[in-house]
């Protein structure tokens, strides 16, 4: 096991390095003029030239990569203003438009994104798995068909349309909730829940759809196995047969998918955040695209993909811990 873990961790570190390099290439060599992408919608030639020097874009590309890379581990300094701006490690860049470190900006936006992801996660796992089991137990009956129909609509509906319909029905027509205005749960828990409820539900519907289908097919596979017949023959109550035996056997792929989906959401749910104007990573990235501010874009892409690579590792290790055959492969 130790050998397996070491090997996987080493591969992950390598992947992170390659990722950093790839992100740098994508965002610095692909565009025709990087400085133009750091200077917002209203861009004067002066700002453009100033940004070129401040961000070191006038240097050779290899030097730029070296500064970028070094900044991640030991920090770096940006010159150009009156005083040099220190960017301590891990330095993801500096936005001269907002005069903020990218790490600070991401830090400010992380709580809303984490709350959104965790809340939606709870809703969709509970909803998706229980409906999936229910559907499998009523296989072929109308209950099964309607759950699968809901699931089809859930994974087909464009998320922003679903969100807009929710806003229209719940907020505008029925007036059940005020228009969401995000606050920290520690500041005002009631307003927090009012603001988060709809975003949680919208995201949960989108994700639960997939988990319903997955749980259903896993359950159907497991229910056909011999050990279920044995369990029933032993006279175990149906509840135990389903919960302890069938569900447990089919749980592994569900856990895997859940880990990766959660990691992806921690990088920001762009559309949901935008719809409900939540101050998360997704809306931060979006605003940096609409009003070009490349350092912020690079920072969010790097953080988000690093989350996914790390989540991949965790899921793989969990998998190996559950199923010893994986380690040998």
């Amino acid at each position, binding site marked *: 096991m130790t050998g397996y873990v070491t090997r996987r961790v080493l591969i992950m570190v390598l*992947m992170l390095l390659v990722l950093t390099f790839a992100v740098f290439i994508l965002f610095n060599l692909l565009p025709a003029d990087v400085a133009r992408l750091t200077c917002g919608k209203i861009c004067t030639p002066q700002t453009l030239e100033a940004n070129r020097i401040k961000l070191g874009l006038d240097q050779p590309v290899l030097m730029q990569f070296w500064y970028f890379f070094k900044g991640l581990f030991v920090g770096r300094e940006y010159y150009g203003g009156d005083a040099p701006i220190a960017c301590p490690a891990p330095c993801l860049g500096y936005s001269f438009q907002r005069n903020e470190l990218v790490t600070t900006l991401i830090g400010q936006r992380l709580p809303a994104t984490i709350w959104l992801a965790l809340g939606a996660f709870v809703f969709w796992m509970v909803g998706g798995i229980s409906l999936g089991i229910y559907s499998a137990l009523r296989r072929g009956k109308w209950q099964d068909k309607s759950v699968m129909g809901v699931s*089809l609509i859930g994974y*087909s509906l464009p*998320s922003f*349309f679903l969100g807009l319909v929710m806003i229209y029905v719940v907020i505008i027509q029925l007036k059940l909730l005020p228009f969401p205005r995000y606050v920290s749960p520690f500041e005002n828990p009631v307003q927090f829940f009012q603001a988060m409820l709809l975003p949680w539900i919208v995201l949960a519907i989108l994700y639960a759809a997939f988990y319903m289908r997955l749980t259903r097919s896993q359950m159907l596979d497991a229910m056909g196995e011999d050990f279920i017949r044995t369990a029933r023959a032993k006279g175990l109550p149906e509840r135990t047969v389903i919960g302890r035996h069938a569900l447990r056997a089919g749980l592994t792929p569900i856990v895997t998918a859940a880990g990766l989906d959660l990691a*992806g959401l921690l990088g920001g749910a*762009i559309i949901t955040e935008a719809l409900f104007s939540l101050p998360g990573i997704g809306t931060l*990235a979006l605003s940096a695209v609409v009003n070009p501010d490349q350092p912020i874009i690079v920072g969010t892409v790097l953080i988000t993909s690093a989350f*996914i690579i790390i989540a*991949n590792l965790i899921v793989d290790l969990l998998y190996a811990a559950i199923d010893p055959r994986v380690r040998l492969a």
Partner: protein
Amino acid sequence: MAIDVAVPSTPIPAPEVAGRSLRQLAWARFRKDRAAMTSLGVLAFLFLIAIFAPLICSWIGVDPYTFNSSAISDDGGKPVGAWGGISWQHPFGVEWGTGRDIFARLLYGLRISLMISIIATTITVVLGTFFGIVSGYAGGKTDAILGRFMDLILAFPFLLIVLALSGAFTQRITALGVPEGNASRIVYLILIFSLFGWPYLSRIIRGQVLSLREREFVESATAMGASGRRILFKEILPNLWAPILVYASLTLPTYIGAEAALSFLGVGILPPEPSFGAILADSVNYFKLVPSYLFIPGGILAILVVTFNLVGDGVRDALDPRAARS
């Protein structure tokens, strides 16, 4: 004593067994799937009206770009008439403030959306199949390198990377001579969807090739001295049509949704060019007063994506009866 046995002069012909190819079997199964067949009909209809959009518009006498000041009130630009000004002249009503015909805008939006997603799906499928076959058949170092490369691409969340690269990539496309604005944006969407979409298919194809290359028919082809190219394209590729077709029919609606989402966020197709996303983004300001602004375009978009998914499910069930849904 001899017993007369009536010997029939002509032998009774054995009932003819019609040989049916796999394709015919799959089609027969698909035809029985009522949801998939209905969806296919709806899709065919949507395709036709998208292709003939200019003809249909000129026949009704509407146009997606013309401002109609007569269809809106002078103060504030509220459409004249109920439900956003729905009338015989304007079947889906007109836009608030400009009076542009929504029916025409949706038809043209459908055209662009289908064009982008069909081209992007085609490129995705070609790339995914090619690299999947190479990776699975070559094995060893090639497979390992391609595998890590795919891991890298898959580490970027799809929507975020499409959004994040829009500035940088569109700028490069414009610099390469594509006209600025929506032309560059359309090229960008097609390229980025394909570049970040192929590894999903590639993984599936690779797995299939890994098992196919151990089969007897490949072995016999090798023994007969067939070239690597012949084995790849004549022996292995024909066996991959099922996963390719299934994947393509499920990717297309994803791309339609992604294009709509990006245009909704203001980074895809930009006005005055019509798109579902932009029309829906615009509806947010008025849907309290005119709900049809939200429900007509949203409904059509939803129908488009749902029917594609139903056809995709149908294709999968028809080609792989073991994985049937119920």
